[in-house]
Protein backbone atom coordinates (compact mmCIF):
# COMPACT_ATOMS: atom_id res chain seq x y z
CA UNK A 1 0.00 0.00 0.00
CA UNK A 2 1.47 3.29 -1.09
CA UNK A 3 0.98 5.73 1.75
CA UNK A 4 2.15 8.83 -0.13
CA UNK A 5 1.12 9.30 -3.75
CA UNK A 6 3.05 11.85 -5.77
CA UNK A 7 2.24 13.41 -9.15
CA UNK A 8 3.22 14.10 -11.82
CA UNK A 9 5.99 11.60 -12.46
CA UNK A 10 7.75 14.10 -14.70
CA UNK A 11 7.31 17.81 -15.39
CA UNK A 12 8.75 20.26 -17.89
CA UNK A 13 8.48 23.98 -17.11
CA UNK A 14 9.83 27.01 -18.90
CA UNK A 15 12.35 29.21 -17.14
CA UNK A 16 10.54 31.78 -15.02
CA UNK A 17 7.40 29.70 -14.76
CA UNK A 18 5.78 28.06 -11.74
CA UNK A 19 6.45 24.38 -11.04
CA UNK A 20 3.77 22.55 -9.06
CA UNK A 21 4.13 19.05 -7.62
CA UNK A 22 1.36 17.36 -5.68
CA UNK A 23 1.20 14.71 -3.00
CA UNK A 24 -1.68 12.92 -1.30
CA UNK A 25 -1.54 10.82 1.83
CA UNK A 26 -3.85 8.42 3.59
CA UNK A 27 -2.55 8.10 7.14
CA UNK A 28 -4.21 10.79 9.28
CA UNK A 29 -1.53 10.27 11.93
CA UNK A 30 1.08 11.92 9.69
CA UNK A 31 2.23 15.18 11.27
CA UNK A 32 5.37 16.13 9.36
CA UNK A 33 5.54 16.73 5.60
CA UNK A 34 8.97 17.49 4.08
CA UNK A 35 10.05 17.92 0.49
CA UNK A 36 13.45 16.68 -0.64
CA UNK A 37 15.46 17.69 -3.70
CA UNK A 38 17.83 15.19 -5.30
CA UNK A 39 20.42 15.85 -7.99
CA UNK A 40 21.97 12.98 -9.98
CA UNK A 41 24.62 11.17 -8.00
CA UNK A 42 23.66 12.88 -4.74
CA UNK A 43 21.51 11.96 -1.79
CA UNK A 44 18.19 13.74 -1.19
CA UNK A 45 18.50 17.11 0.56
CA UNK A 46 15.79 18.66 2.71
CA UNK A 47 14.23 21.59 0.87
CA UNK A 48 11.30 22.70 3.02
CA UNK A 49 8.91 21.07 5.49
CA UNK A 50 5.52 21.81 7.01
CA UNK A 51 3.48 20.62 9.97
CA UNK A 52 -0.34 20.42 9.85
CA UNK A 53 -0.94 23.39 12.14
CA UNK A 54 -0.33 25.79 9.23
CA UNK A 55 -1.74 25.81 5.68
CA UNK A 56 1.24 27.35 3.93
CA UNK A 57 4.96 27.80 4.41
CA UNK A 58 7.24 29.84 2.20
CA UNK A 59 11.02 29.84 1.98
CA UNK A 60 12.39 31.98 -0.82
CA UNK A 61 10.99 30.71 -4.12
CA UNK A 62 9.67 27.50 -2.55
CA UNK A 63 6.21 27.24 -1.00
CA UNK A 64 4.35 24.30 0.54
CA UNK A 65 0.56 24.43 0.50
CA UNK A 66 -1.16 22.04 2.88
CA UNK A 67 -4.82 20.96 2.86
CA UNK A 68 -5.51 18.84 5.92
CA UNK A 69 -9.13 18.02 5.08
CA UNK A 70 -8.20 16.80 1.61
CA UNK A 71 -5.05 15.08 2.90
CA UNK A 72 -3.00 16.77 0.21
CA UNK A 73 0.07 18.96 0.08
CA UNK A 74 1.95 20.53 -2.78
CA UNK A 75 5.26 22.17 -3.60
CA UNK A 76 5.28 25.37 -5.65
CA UNK A 77 8.53 26.63 -7.16
CA UNK A 78 8.16 30.23 -8.26
CA UNK A 79 10.33 31.76 -11.00
CA UNK A 80 11.71 28.29 -11.83
CA UNK A 81 15.37 28.25 -12.90
CA UNK A 82 17.44 25.68 -14.84
CA UNK A 83 19.33 25.00 -11.59
CA UNK A 84 16.06 23.73 -10.10
CA UNK A 85 16.12 20.79 -12.52
CA UNK A 86 16.23 17.77 -10.22
CA UNK A 87 14.06 15.01 -8.79
CA UNK A 88 11.73 16.09 -6.00
CA UNK A 89 10.32 13.77 -3.36
CA UNK A 90 7.51 14.44 -0.94
CA UNK A 91 7.48 12.49 2.31
CA UNK A 92 5.45 12.14 5.46
CA UNK A 93 5.90 10.81 8.97
CA UNK A 94 3.88 10.40 12.12
CA UNK A 95 6.82 11.04 14.41
CA UNK A 96 7.15 14.76 13.88
CA UNK A 97 10.48 14.43 12.13
CA UNK A 98 12.91 11.98 10.56
CA UNK A 99 11.42 8.93 12.26
CA UNK A 100 9.38 6.67 9.99
CA UNK A 101 9.48 8.86 6.88
CA UNK A 102 7.56 7.44 3.93
CA UNK A 103 8.58 8.84 0.55
CA UNK A 104 6.63 9.38 -2.65
CA UNK A 105 7.98 8.00 -5.91
CA UNK A 106 9.43 11.30 -7.03
CA UNK A 107 8.92 13.91 -9.74
CA UNK A 108 11.60 14.49 -12.35
CA UNK A 109 11.53 18.26 -13.00
CA UNK A 110 13.16 19.84 -16.03
CA UNK A 111 13.36 23.61 -16.37
CA UNK A 112 13.90 24.62 -19.98
CA UNK A 113 15.98 27.75 -20.55
Amino acid at each position, binding site marked *: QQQVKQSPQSLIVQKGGISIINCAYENTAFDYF*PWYQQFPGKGPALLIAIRPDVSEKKEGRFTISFNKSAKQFSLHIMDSQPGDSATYFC*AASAGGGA*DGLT*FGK*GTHLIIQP
Partner: protein
Amino acid sequence: EAGVAQSPRYKIIEKRQSVAFWCNPISGHATLYWYQQILGQGPKLLIQFQNNGVVDDSQLPKDRFSAERLKGVDSTLKIQPAKLEDSAVYLCASSQSPTEKLFFGSGTQLSVL
Protein backbone atom coordinates in the same frame (compact mmCIF):
# COMPACT_ATOMS: atom_id res chain seq x y z
CA GLU B 1 29.96 20.91 9.39
CA ALA B 2 30.85 17.67 7.65
CA GLY B 3 27.98 15.75 6.10
CA VAL B 4 27.13 12.05 6.15
CA ALA B 5 30.05 10.10 4.68
CA GLN B 6 29.56 6.88 2.73
CA SER B 7 31.86 4.48 0.95
CA PRO B 8 32.40 3.02 -1.53
CA ARG B 9 30.78 5.30 -4.07
CA TYR B 10 30.13 2.51 -6.56
CA LYS B 11 30.23 -1.26 -6.35
CA ILE B 12 29.72 -3.90 -9.03
CA ILE B 13 29.41 -7.55 -7.99
CA GLU B 14 28.02 -10.77 -9.35
CA LYS B 15 24.94 -12.39 -7.89
CA ARG B 16 25.54 -14.60 -4.88
CA GLN B 17 28.60 -12.55 -3.88
CA SER B 18 28.70 -10.51 -0.70
CA VAL B 19 29.14 -6.76 -0.33
CA ALA B 20 29.46 -4.25 2.52
CA PHE B 21 28.77 -0.55 2.74
CA TRP B 22 30.12 1.88 5.31
CA CYS B 23 28.57 5.03 6.76
CA ASN B 24 29.82 7.73 9.13
CA PRO B 25 26.99 10.00 10.26
CA ILE B 26 27.18 13.69 11.11
CA SER B 27 28.99 14.16 14.40
CA GLY B 28 26.61 14.06 17.34
CA HIS B 29 23.75 12.47 15.44
CA ALA B 30 22.33 9.68 17.55
CA THR B 31 19.90 8.33 14.97
CA LEU B 32 21.16 6.56 11.84
CA TYR B 33 19.14 5.14 8.96
CA TRP B 34 19.86 2.94 5.96
CA TYR B 35 17.60 3.42 2.94
CA GLN B 36 17.38 1.55 -0.35
CA GLN B 37 16.56 3.60 -3.45
CA ILE B 38 15.68 1.61 -6.54
CA LEU B 39 15.92 3.50 -9.82
CA GLY B 40 12.85 5.64 -10.37
CA GLN B 41 11.53 5.27 -6.82
CA GLY B 42 11.74 7.08 -3.53
CA PRO B 43 13.98 5.91 -0.70
CA LYS B 44 12.69 2.96 1.31
CA LEU B 45 13.77 2.53 4.92
CA LEU B 46 15.71 -0.66 5.64
CA ILE B 47 16.83 -0.14 9.23
CA GLN B 48 16.98 2.55 11.89
CA PHE B 49 19.45 2.76 14.78
CA GLN B 50 19.22 4.88 17.91
CA ASN B 51 22.79 5.05 19.18
CA ASN B 52 23.92 1.41 18.82
CA GLY B 53 20.48 -0.17 19.22
CA VAL B 54 18.09 -1.19 16.45
CA VAL B 55 14.79 0.73 16.55
CA ASP B 56 13.15 -0.53 13.36
CA ASP B 57 14.29 -3.28 11.00
CA SER B 58 10.84 -4.41 9.87
CA GLN B 59 11.64 -3.87 6.17
CA LEU B 60 15.13 -5.38 6.23
CA PRO B 61 15.37 -8.73 4.36
CA LYS B 62 17.05 -10.43 7.26
CA ASP B 63 17.84 -13.63 5.35
CA ARG B 64 20.45 -11.73 3.34
CA PHE B 65 20.86 -8.24 4.81
CA SER B 66 22.54 -7.37 8.09
CA ALA B 67 23.61 -4.10 9.67
CA GLU B 68 25.46 -3.01 12.75
CA ARG B 69 26.40 0.20 14.46
CA LEU B 70 29.13 -0.61 16.92
CA LYS B 71 29.92 2.11 19.49
CA GLY B 72 26.96 4.14 18.27
CA VAL B 73 28.87 6.06 15.58
CA ASP B 74 29.63 4.58 12.18
CA SER B 75 27.67 1.73 10.66
CA THR B 76 28.01 -1.04 8.09
CA LEU B 77 25.33 -2.65 5.95
CA LYS B 78 26.06 -6.07 4.46
CA ILE B 79 24.33 -8.13 1.79
CA GLN B 80 25.13 -11.84 1.56
CA PRO B 81 24.36 -13.35 -0.90
CA ALA B 82 23.35 -10.58 -3.30
CA LYS B 83 20.51 -10.96 -5.78
CA LEU B 84 19.88 -9.13 -9.03
CA GLU B 85 17.00 -7.20 -7.44
CA ASP B 86 19.38 -5.73 -4.86
CA SER B 87 20.73 -3.39 -7.54
CA ALA B 88 19.99 0.05 -6.11
CA VAL B 89 21.50 3.05 -4.37
CA TYR B 90 22.01 2.48 -0.66
CA LEU B 91 21.65 5.71 1.24
CA CYS B 92 22.74 6.36 4.78
CA ALA B 93 21.09 9.18 6.68
CA SER B 94 21.33 10.62 10.16
CA SER B 95 19.50 12.98 12.49
CA GLN B 96 20.13 14.38 15.94
CA SER B 97 17.02 12.58 17.12
CA PRO B 98 13.96 10.91 15.53
CA THR B 99 12.06 14.21 15.71
CA GLU B 100 14.71 16.25 13.97
CA LYS B 101 15.63 16.81 10.32
CA LEU B 102 17.09 13.99 8.23
CA PHE B 103 20.40 14.41 6.40
CA PHE B 104 21.43 11.99 3.65
CA GLY B 105 24.80 10.90 2.36
CA SER B 106 25.52 10.62 -1.38
CA GLY B 107 24.93 6.88 -1.32
CA THR B 108 26.57 3.75 -2.69
CA GLN B 109 25.40 2.65 -6.11
CA LEU B 110 25.30 -1.15 -6.23
CA SER B 111 25.04 -3.09 -9.45
CA VAL B 112 24.49 -6.84 -9.18
CA LEU B 113 25.24 -8.69 -12.43
